[in-house]
């Protein structure tokens, strides 16, 4: 088997996935979401101080509609700063008073875009829509002809997997770079950490799409793939969040009430399964979410209970690798 044929198969499957995405409508939907988000970002403007920080210190500040903010004498005495900037939307048609400085406002907006629009809405939409790609690819009548081509079976299944990943990557790049550039051009804030959300979104998707591939190879059912992947995402998110809540709560429970067996069981489930809450936390952390939301899951608190972000990501990736390996094995030994 020539390497060039393997490469040609990978390339063809990637192109095939883009065609499939275009025909199924998911490409149009994701592009519309991206373009709408870019348009919103291209319509914003900010006014006010870029940062309320003085040197390395974050001073106390008040929003300008606060009662105390109207009294200049009080402000002078206390040294509290009034955040008096505004965020303009729809080319200034809507003026939103800022509760803090303009840099924070932009950071908050980027957080909503990456965490809310892309990592939640976009991820769910893409997982649901692309979950049907593999079952139709593996339909017995159409896959038979492809199996009679020289490319080994692992190339077919991994080619389709990476084809879907390349489609998601392309859309993530359009969304993130587009909104980043629009925000930068309109406000002058060019925060490069926002671009980190591209690999993080791809990482998050790749792990759960790997599970979808396994379901597709085992059942060839679109319904099972769509609902199975969503249920799996909910289960793993609950397991992930529950484990951290459980670990944090042990400090508040007396030693006599602690159950080592339950603790180990929860730990086992946590380490074996992928960890969507941790991946979300990684994304939020990299975008400075703690300045805006506080911490439902505070990495520093969790670190005291044996939590390591990199170990968490590595074990999620290991899960995806094992699931893909099992999928390839199953596909290689299936008669069509």
């Amino acid at each position, binding site marked *: *088997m*020539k390497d*060039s*044929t393997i490469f*040609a*198969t990978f390339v*063809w499957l990637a*192109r*095939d996935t883009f*065609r*499939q995405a*275009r*025909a*199924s409508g998911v490409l149009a939907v994701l592009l519309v979401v991206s373009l709408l988000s870019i348009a919103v970002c291209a319509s914003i403007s900010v006014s006010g101080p870029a940062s309320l920080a003085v040197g390395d210190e974050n001073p106390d500040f008040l929003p300008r509609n606060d009662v105390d903010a109207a009294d200049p004498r009080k402000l002078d005495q206390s040294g509290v700063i009034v955040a008096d900037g505004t965020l303009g939307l729809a080319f200034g048609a809507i003026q939103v008073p800022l509760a803090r400085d303009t840099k924070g406002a932009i950071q908050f907006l980027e957080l909503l875009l990456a965490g809310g629009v892309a990592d939640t809405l976009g991820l769910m939409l893409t997982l649901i829509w692309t979950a049907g790609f593999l079952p*139709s*690819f593996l*339909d017995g*009548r*159409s896959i*038979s*002809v*492809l*199996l*009679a*081509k*020289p*490319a*080994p079976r692992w190339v077919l299944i991994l080619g389709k997997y990476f084809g879907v990943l390349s489609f998601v990557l392309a859309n993530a790049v359009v969304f993130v770079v587009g909104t980043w550039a629009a925000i930068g051009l309109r406000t002058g804030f060019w925060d490069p950490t926002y671009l980190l959300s591209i690999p993080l979104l791809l990482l998050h998707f790749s792990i759960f799409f790997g599970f979808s591939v396994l379901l597709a190879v085992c059942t060839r059912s679109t319904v099972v793939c769509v609902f199975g992947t969503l249920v799996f995402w909910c289960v793993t998110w609950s397991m992930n969040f529950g484990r951290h809540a459980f670990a944090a709560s042990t400090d508040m429970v007396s030693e006599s009430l602690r159950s080592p067996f339950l603790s180990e069981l929860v730990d086992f489930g946590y380490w074996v399964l992928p960890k969507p809450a941790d991946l979300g936390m990684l994304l939020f952390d990299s975008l400075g979410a703690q300045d805006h939301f506080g911490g439902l899951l505070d990495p520093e608190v969790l670190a005291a209970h044996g939590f390591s972000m990199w170990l968490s990501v590595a074990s999620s990736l290991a899960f995806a690798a094992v699931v893909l390996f099992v999928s390839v094995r199953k596909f290689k*030994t299936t*008669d*069509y």
Partner: protein
Amino acid sequence: MESMDVRLNAHAAAVFQKVTKIYHVGWTARRLVALDEVSLSVGWGEVLGLIGPNRAGKTTLVKILLSICRPSGGRIMRLESGLSDRSTLARVGYVHENPAFPRYLNAWQLVEGYGRLSGVPRGVLRQRTGELLEQVGLADRSRERIANFSKGMLQRLALAQALVNDPKLLVLDEPAEGMDLAARRLLDDVIRQRRERGHSVILVSHALADVKRLCDRIAVLRSGRVAYVGRVADLAKDTHSDETGPLESAVEAIYAGATS
């Protein structure tokens, strides 16, 4: 009837030696013997007709040859190499009994794409794709989505994609199903052209008239076993059913178990 003692070292496009296929079906993994020590060969430049009643194992046999199914036992040579050598598939063409292709592709994308997957050089692929679509009568619909194709058009497309790599071995599983008269004539021409060029064809069919007209030899499968292998012309004589009778009665006699 020919000897069924097939040697693996025979120079042939395809050789099956005591090939067995057992499926395990249902929750109880019940054993279902689809092929039972099938021995058969297809020579170079030969058209072999593979016939048999439903569930005789015809499709399973060709799927094993094409590495779509795995054999439970026996040995198979494809283009004088073992099945593990997948590079030989670059010179094999296959028409599925009930073809289905990605509905979002158009005919051109499909034929060209499948040619790429078979390793056809880019330089010749474009020209060959155009020629083949012209040959099967789909040139004017080549940019139309496959989703809009009728069954007959899908069969023509299936034939075009099977020929894109200029196969030395062409496997046709019920290719005439749903074809109109013009397409059937085209199929006849394709099979004859392959034979003239020294390439081999396996034709799986229930249409005895097609087998009689196109095939050099015939193999009859019954309940997963080879019930008859021989020249089409010799079939009636070998079955002792009716030397002057039609092919149908000879085949029916084999299906009924008169000859084994």
